């Protein structure tokens, strides 16, 4: 069960070379299977709890490989296409929200602008619909906010069960069912992740875009961080280099 990743260059190339596969993927997108999993996360022992994730032997994290649709109606796999190897910021909203969503997306646009040099590669933004918005509705919303077609920003929709599993998996839930299901009080938090390093943090998506952008950059190892002048904290006096510094070896499962 291989579905092309519409978000990566390699996958885009593959979809050009294998139009049949892409066509099949397009057909599949009309019938997303809630809670579906595939070979990357369906092993025996994957917990049944909503929002569960597991740490694999190489130290990276696996979520259920849900089926989603993006703003262009393409089928996207959650783990395979959105999580695996990615550095990203994810928020939850819906098109007709009369509450925080408009401001939240506004702040995320600000963060996107600051991160423009690295958006699409290697940083991505994901926006998950909390109200089963159609791809057309999401696309229209993106167009109205001037973000349609911007590299690296994908809006995603899926069944309520799938979106709930993803939301819970990112830690945004309330054990009280009534509170959890109250759409008006939905989370305004952004989840930041660097899958390769299993590095995760979170801050309000409504925060100053500078803080959001800096939180994203902090997910990278220092040597790989994008150097963006606008993200420097003007009030922090820079630390000084250690003379004759020799870096410590990487601290990873595979490198331990």
């Amino acid at each position: 069960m291989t579905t092309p990743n519409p978000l990566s260059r390699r996958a885009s190339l593959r979809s050009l070379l294998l139009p049949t596969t892409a066509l099949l993927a397009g057909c599949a997108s009309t019938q997303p299977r809630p809670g579906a999993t595939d070979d990357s996360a369906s092993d025996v022992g994957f917990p049944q709890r909503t929002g569960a994730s597991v740490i694999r032997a190489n130290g990276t994290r696996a979520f259920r490989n849900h089926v989603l649709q993006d703003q262009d109606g393409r089928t996207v796999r959650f783990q395979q296409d959105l999580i695996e190897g990615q550095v990203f910021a994810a928020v939850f909203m819906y098109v007709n929200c009369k509450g925080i969503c408009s401001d939240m997306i506004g702040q995320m646009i600000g963060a996107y602008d600051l991160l423009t040099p690295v958006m699409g590669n290697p940083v991505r933004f994901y926006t998950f619909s909390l109200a089963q918005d159609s791809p057309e509705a999401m696309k229209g919303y993106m167009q109205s906010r001037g973000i349609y077609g911007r590299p690296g920003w994908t809006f995603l929709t899926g069944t309520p069960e799938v979106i709930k599993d993803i939301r819970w998996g990112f830690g945004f839930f309330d054990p009280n069912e009534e509170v959890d299901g109250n759409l008006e009080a939905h989370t305004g938090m952004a989840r930041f992740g660097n899958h390769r390093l299993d590095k995760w943090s979170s801050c309000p998506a409504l925060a100053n875009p500078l803080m959001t952008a800096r939180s994203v950059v902090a997910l990278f190892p220092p040597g790989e961080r994008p150097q963006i002048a606008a993200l420097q904290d003007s009030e922090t006096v820079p630390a000084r280099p250690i003379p004759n510094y020799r870096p410590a070896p990487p601290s990873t499962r595979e490198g331990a």
Partner: protein
Amino acid sequence: MRDRLFHAQIGRRGFVKGSALATGAFFINTKYSLAALADEPASPFTTAWTQPLRFAPYAIPLPAWQALDPLPDPARHQRYDEFSPRYFYNMEVCEELVRPHPQLGWSRCSTYEHSVPGVTFMHRYGVPVLCRINNQLPQVMQGFGSCDVITHVHNGHHAPESDGFPEDRFSPGTFRDHHWANTLASGDPLEAKGTMWYHDHCLDFTAQNTYRGLAGFFLLFDDLDSGNELDPNPDALRLPSGVPDGKRVRNRFDIPLIFTDRRFNQAGELLFDTMNMDGILGDKWLVNGFVQPYFEVERRKYRFRLLDGGPSRFYDLWFSNGMTFDVIANDGNLLPAPVTAQSVKLGVAERMDIVVDFSELPETTTEIYLVNRAEQVDGRGPTGNVLPMSQSPKLLKLVIRPDTGIIDASRVPSSLRARPAMDWPVARERSWHFDRTNGMWTVNGQLFDHNRCDAFCKQGTAEIWHFSTSGGWAHPIHMHCEEPMLLTYKGKPANSGIWAGRKDVFTLYPGDEMSVYIKFRDWLGRYPMHCHNTVHEDHAMMVRWDIVP
């Protein structure tokens, strides 16, 4: 300092390589470890009371003939020449493999100077020091925790550039100099502090980094609390003294205890739920970094410096025999007078110093336990129920030695340190309401922005601040630099007993209201105030306030 022996149970990377590989092999066999703690089986079984209580070694300054390279830059510090450092430290933050119990595996931890807890700083008022903190962590660090760090001395009266503002985090390969003036706030001896601790304060990663090991004790002494129970100075209190230095434990009666709770996976490795937004609870009880140790005590008085090291646990500490003790300090500040109590409550980061007299126990009592009777089922805070003694988790076993006729010269005087005067007129009052909207922490309805100052406090003035909260959460609110004094709690005066001293952490339980008096002194610049449930703190439950000319 780099050549010193490591803290016991901490291996050099090469030495424990075999263990690490063995652990890795186990991991491959198990295929997955479960990240969602709701699904995670309980931590592996550990036999309690099989290992002695351990202590971090003292931080050791550079010898007089050795200079830091490069030299400190006075231009980076306020009042550097006025508080010219007498001692210089050159400390590393580095990764080590640590095993908190022989039945657990080795975990990769971040350490201060190779030790968990971090090396113990022992300073005296009037002796300024400079500590260079070199970030030697791996640049590529998988799993929870950040390789960026910034160190905060909790309750230190330090300039902001040395205080550990979260945005001042710095990366491996770089260092920061922390100038700790060790000066009394506005020169008032009544403002002396005692039991402090230092820990990481990295933006977004404080909970993960402290959980990974970055915390240690920072103790300050003066003529009154001199750390010498045989002090000939008639002004000295002569409280039980002698802080253990690594393995040097004999005849030491001033015992720092940091309580933490942790989870471990089935390979016995440290586990942190990075997706948890409420607060992290563990099912293993650690004291000074080791699971359920024992400690042998003489039949005499001991000073215990109790610290809730978090990240989200609340404690209601009792001795299993119900014995009483004297509370002598709240948040490290000596009270005007000792308070006899049977229990003390601690929110995250709070400290209580108590003096326990084991000579009063009958000869037949040879063991007692320190237990936590606070019921807590999630990271949001305690339920408010007090667990029955028999069902309360035991944290530390105290083995009381037979009476050897030991002479105990220590005292608990009836008068300790008076409360400082609230003699500055109140320039203004401010209210701070801590709340949660759409899953986001707010203070006065606003989100944290480190570029926005929410209170410009004029140096040389005093203010009254009102704290309140809503929702079913407990929030230990911590203020940097300046130490407020409690005025009212739930609208009633609260300035006696254990509330008579100064505090830096004010734990707000659901619906609580507190009012405090604060003076702003000595340093200029930006400081944070935040919830010290560090999971909440990392999700931006914080405000910035500045001291301005």
